[in-house]
């Protein structure tokens, strides 16, 4: 399984339905901190994203632990 898919599965196990995007692999906490989290939709139908993680239950430690199980 690809690293990026592992990261997606791990995050969605921690919080089902959470929406995000990232470019490249999630291997380190620095990579995790570059994830874009969806906060809304603009008038063009495009996602409004932020790198400020609004989900307190989704931490790098928790994501890494879930990824290691896969």
């Amino acid at each position, binding site marked *: *399984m*690809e690293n*990026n*898919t592992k*990261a*997606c*599965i791990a*995050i*969605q196990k921690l919080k089902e339905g*959470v*929406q*995000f*995007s*990232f*470019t*490249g692999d999630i291997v380190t906490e620095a990579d995790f901190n570059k994830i*874009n989290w*969806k906060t809304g*939709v603009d008038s*063009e*139908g*495009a*996602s409004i*994203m932020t790198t400020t993680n609004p989900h307190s239950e989704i931490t790098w430690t928790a994501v890494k632990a879930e990824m290691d199980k896969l």
Partner: protein
Amino acid sequence: MALTRLGPNQSINLASNVTGTLATGNGGTGATSFSPGKLLQIQSVNFTSGVTSVTTDSFTATEVTDQITPSATDSKILVIFNTSLSQYEGSGSGCKYEAGIYRQINGGGYSRIYAGSGNSYGGYGESSGNTERTTSFPTTMTFLDTSHNTTNAIDYKLYLSLLTASGQGDNVNTGASDQERSVTLIEIGA
């Protein structure tokens, strides 16, 4: 045809004093006038690492982008995206995504120019479902931009979204295993 012998310090005005046709047999074109080509410039880029993964149900920007600065406001830009979009689904009824081309002029923000919502999607659905699966399909998007009306820099970017109406999948990626992706922008004169 009248001929004039030039003196040592005389010159010919090419704009007004030269007419006629140079035959192809003598190295000419055989034409009495010149029409410049319509292909004004080509810009292209390849991506070989760092695919973008998207889990949103609305269009989200990816890394697949390129910029061109048109030489004329009335030119056309042929926009070509080549990717191999991949998806993962842990369970459920298939993998489907939407793809769109967004344009930004002079850094003024992106807006979708192709395609209309629900008009550009790929993937597949399953009636039995509930099995883990991955997919990867060659995906080419082509669009002729006839409305840029600018000589400022234009960015074109690929946006992706899960197709939530049916069999959305868990995520859609601009490629599996960093598969090569490319953008080609061709400016064509009016």
